[in-house]
């Protein structure tokens, strides 16, 4: 292991932290505006998980565009792949049958059981206060037995809410065995934000603080969260990236800093 980095930024920490979740056995799809997870997949491949498979834009199997050129859903990212996965027959077949088991999502609202909403803000779906873009693949992935990795660049009480206004993507629903009772396997595993890392308490399925990023306190995280987090007595600091990881990310994987696009609207400066 190389030396720890001392000058990393939050976007970089998020990428590295997410990358470390994945192993050689993982096959990762990505959707739109997903610079952080895509950077994480590419980084994991370059470091501890050389056999990890990234299906670029859910199309290009084992693609290798060299670096993040632009838009994560664009064919530019399919370069040097071994296969173009036809979406309906192949991609959705592999997802639906759970041959592909993992997915990363984010959203405008995330609640204490890992339910996610990117459709509307407000209680009337048909006359919303804010019309958001829509659920895209989240509603699919969360109901089709995926292990879900949630990322968010806006850890604040507007995003982390007690209950989502609209239940687009089912996490653990009302907690406990509610998800399993519906026949849904897996569910949210980890939440990586601009402040901390969280997981889910195994019995209640409530979101739980796991580690705080350098310079952030557990109290700050709680203050920026719209519900009571399960918080252990001793909260660790999120492990720092290595110099090697940071170099790879800055120089090889995302030299155009596309990942920073995701911090538009975030209080966190990157």
């Amino acid at each position: 292991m190389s030396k720890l980095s001392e000058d990393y930024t939050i976007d970089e920490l998020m990428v590295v932290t997410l990358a470390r979740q994945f192993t050689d056995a993982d096959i990762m799809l990505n959707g739109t505006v997903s610079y952080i997870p895509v950077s994480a997949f590419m980084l994991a491949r370059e470091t501890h998980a050389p056999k990890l498979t990234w299906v670029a834009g859910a199309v290009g199997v084992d693609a290798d565009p060299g670096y993040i050129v632009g838009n994560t859903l664009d064919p530019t990212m399919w370069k040097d792949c071994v296969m173009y996965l036809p979406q309906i027959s192949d991609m959705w077949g592999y997802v639906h049958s759970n041959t592909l088991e993992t997915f990363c999502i984010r959203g405008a609202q995330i609640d204490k059981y890992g339910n996610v909403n990117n459709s509307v803000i407000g209680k009337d779906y048909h006359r919303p206060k804010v019309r958001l873009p829509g659920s895209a693949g989240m509603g699919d992935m969360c109901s089709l037995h995926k292990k879900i990795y949630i990322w968010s660049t806006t850890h604040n009480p507007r995003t982390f809410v007690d209950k989502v206004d609209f239940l687009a993507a089912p996490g653990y629903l009302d907690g406990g065995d509610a998800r399993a009772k519906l026949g849904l396997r897996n569910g949210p595993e980890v939440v990586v934000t601009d402040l901390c890392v969280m997981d889910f308490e195994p019995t209640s399925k409530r979101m739980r603080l796991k580690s705080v990023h350098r310079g952030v306190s557990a109290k700050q995280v709680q203050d920026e969260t719209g519900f009571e987090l399960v918080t252990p007595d001793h909260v660790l600091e999120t492990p720092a990236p290595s110099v090697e990881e940071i170099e790879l990310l800055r120089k090889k994987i995302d030299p155009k800093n596309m990942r920073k696009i995701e911090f538009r609207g975030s209080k966190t400066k990157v």
Partner: protein
Amino acid sequence: MAAGKENKVMSAAQAVGMIRDGDTVAIQGMGTQMSPLALVREIIKARKRNLIAAMIVGGIGLDWLIAAGCVKKVMAIIVNLDEFGMANAFRRAVEAGELMMEEYTEHQMLTRFSAGCYGLPFMTTQSGIGSAIVDLHPDTTKVIDCPFTGQKVIACRALTPDVCILHAHRADEVGNVQFFPKPIWGDVDVFPRASKKVIVTVEEIVSTDEIRRTPERTGLPYFKVDAVVPVKYGAHPCSLFPRYNFDRQVMERYAAESRTPEGTQAFLEKYVRAPRTQEDYLDLVGGSTMEARIQSFWS
């Protein structure tokens, strides 16, 4: 009903004449990719009204149509400008109660189209079990029991749009349409096959003999195509893989100007209504400068 084996080459204006007010129109395209935007501009010029837009991802073209007052309802899984942010006309129209958004999970929407392709009244998915999305449209998605195992599945009612509009790489005069490579994305795959009429713009018209040299690239046979419209850069400012990239400059301009209703209308006036022809439009967005800007990463 199969389309005939006749010369179907026509202008965009002629082709758009096939669309009637109130039609359900399947519009190919992702946020910034492979969308028939020359046809979309023509629909706006022809002042079509009360259209139902059926898409997977609604992008810039849908936002233009909404801003121009052509659309009463959207069926889609997401509407935005991809990395360029919100589709503001869409957002404002829904928030004002002027536009209905019928949201689906991606696999529900694809399954509705697939059932349409087969002429089946419905097909099945499990996507959306546990999500409130399935409750939004009881007339088109319904949880039923498997007659063999008792497991819950979602019946998705067939969607058969009146017209499909799409942009492809090339076609012959009778409408054998080729893609490089063959359709990968779900919309290109099922939208035309599920629709009653199909209008295709293509970068170029080639001979049928040329088509016969690479039959593995043909995605639509002539008997499923009603109009062939040659339009160079027909997807601009979206991309046509692997031929050209999306035009970041025009996308950013629209994203910025569409923040206000006035800016949106000014953009439409300048870039959609004012150019008389596709050549005018291409000159306006930069001509050869534009060509250099969108040069493919793949070439």
